[in-house]
């Protein structure tokens, strides 16, 4: 078809055309450089959040990255934007969190994101743990207790190994010897090895999805249009060690 006949012909000089093209290209380029395009509604399926110094278990972050391989975006927390649409965000090995990042994560959840918040507080000092507890409550209304050491007892043959390794006896919970596994009951029933010191979570709000004996160590709670999942026993190290159950549980959470 002759474009002129169809009325599609525009009267534009070559100079104006070139000016226009250059300007458009420049605008596109500068918006990318300055990050303005981030403001647009970018969409992610799965984001693994790198909290940098606030991630106290680096191996946990690596575990999630390894488990997702190429099927995720790993972003530094300060690059995340609450206007984005993320189906799932994972924050591994959380120690402390900048309140602004906490607010942004909450906004994302309210907008429909499924947020997995993995506590890395098991090995923090008592003061750091207290700050961690306050942060979780302030940002997410999560009530957690100080870590419980599942291996705090002493084996009968500890003395034999005095100069060598020091294996521990498992702690007793409710008079029974605690098994070293977290039993997840959602989204599928599965057992994954606990990470020595677990953070019990209150079951007041939401639903308990993981137990060590009678200790609730994982929970989920609807927040706005999204879901907040709290893990009191880090899963990342098990993912890093290629634990098949840990990977299968994560896959289930992603595909729910």
């Amino acid at each position, binding site marked *: 078809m002759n474009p002129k006949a169809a009325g599609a012909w525009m009267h534009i000089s070559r100079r104006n055309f070139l000016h226009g093209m250059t300007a458009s290209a420049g605008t596109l380029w500068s918006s990318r450089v300055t990050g303005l395009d981030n403001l647009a509604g970018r969409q992610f399926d799965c984001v693994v959040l790198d909290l940098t110094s606030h991630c106290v278990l680096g191996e946990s972050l690596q575990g999630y990255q390894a488990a997702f391989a190429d099927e995720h975006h790993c972003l530094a927390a300060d690059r995340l934007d609450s206007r984005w649409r993320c189906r799932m965000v994972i924050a591994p090995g959380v120690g402390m969190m900048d309140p602004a990042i906490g607010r942004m994560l909450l906004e994302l959840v309210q907008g429909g994101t499924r947020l997995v918040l993995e506590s890395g507080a098991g090995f923090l000092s008592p003061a750091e743990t207290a700050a961690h507890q306050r942060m979780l409550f302030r940002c997410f209304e999560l009530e957690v207790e100080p870590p419980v050491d599942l291996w705090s007892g002493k084996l009968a043959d500890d003395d*034999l190994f005095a100069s060598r390794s020091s294996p521990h006896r498992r702690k007793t919970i409710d008079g029974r010897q605690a098994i070293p596994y977290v039993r997840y009951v959602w989204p599928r029933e599965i057992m994954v090895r606990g990470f020595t010191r677990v953070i019990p979570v209150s079951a007041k709000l939401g639903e308990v999805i993981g137990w060590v004996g009678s200790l609730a160590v994982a929970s989920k709670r609807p927040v706005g249009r999204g879901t907040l999942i709290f893990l009191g026993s880090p899963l990342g190290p*098990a993912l890093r060690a290629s634990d098949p159950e840990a990977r299968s549980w994560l896959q289930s959470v992603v595909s729910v």
Partner: protein
Amino acid sequence: MAFCALFTRLLSASRPQKNGDSALAGIAHTIIFWATPEDALRLGAASAAANCLAGSPGATRLGHIRRLQNEIRLETIETGPEHFRYDSFLRSSWSAQEGVMKKSIGDNMIPRGWSFEQGLELVKKAGYDGIELWLGEVPWFQMNTTDTQVTELRRKVENAGLVVSNVSTGLHWKTPLSARDPKVRAEAIRIVERELETAQLLGCDAILVVTGLVTQEVPYNEVYQRCLDAMQQLTPVAAKARVKIGCENCNSEQRFLLTPREFWTFLNEVDSPFVGIHLDVGNIHDTGFAEQWIEMHGPRITRIHLKDVMKKRGRCCDTVYTSLFIGDNDWPAIRAALTKVRYDGWLIAEMEARYRYAQDQQFYDTAADMDRLISAKL
């Protein structure tokens, strides 16, 4: 890179140099930064030949290089081309010196209450060539021992007519590289770094590290991954210090890397000429045979710990370890394996079973046993 170091060593071995050697130094410099091992050899041979023509001491060097080339061909056939680079380097440079194996004993064997100087005198009198220094296990060598104090230790060792064979530590039993607590792991890394630093100060080129501990609490796969991470983190430090990390096989106590093949795989994954195995022939217990470990790891063995073991008589501390030739190790087979892999490095006595009385006598008896082992008259 490894070969280049060797090549420069060959160069320096035949000083004083004549005119052609300045050109050789230039070539060596080029090799250090650019050449592959194969190229290094070719360049080395060519330059040595050129030096011969110039009438310099290059003739000797050419002989060295040709012999080295023969060894490398043999090694390539034995282990496959994928390990060409490391194994050839290791075989030719990890040994203490060409020739006879040397005897050493740990300073943690020095009877309680004795001073370091008294201990050194005993070690020398008993006929050892060197001493192994145990970081964190003796009062004179702790984590907080300063560099100056470490240098002073070296002076004392040398004044006694000995050398430091290597630096070891048992600190990783309490502070393992495989701990779940990141702070403990950081401390464990610092211990290895201090071992490397002190090894440099003490003039030796190998340290011992207990790599990781599998426990009921910390499972095998986690330990493996963390140890791999730790070794990869430490490799550049070791390379910079020119000190090799020998991961000890503490099979039964560590419950980690239980077979020689597993250990081999681990070292392959670490993939550094600065990480090898500090082989303890007494630690293999009833999980294998020391001679097979020697055969399999030959060129990667940084040092050898000697003790005997009584199999099937319990584990650890009280009952299982004993003096050489009393236990169940097959010493003729071990000696033959050492010959087979051409190990000519340090043998270090680590007698976990100590004499209850006349403790100094154990130094003499063990030295005599080691001489007998070295002489292969078994």
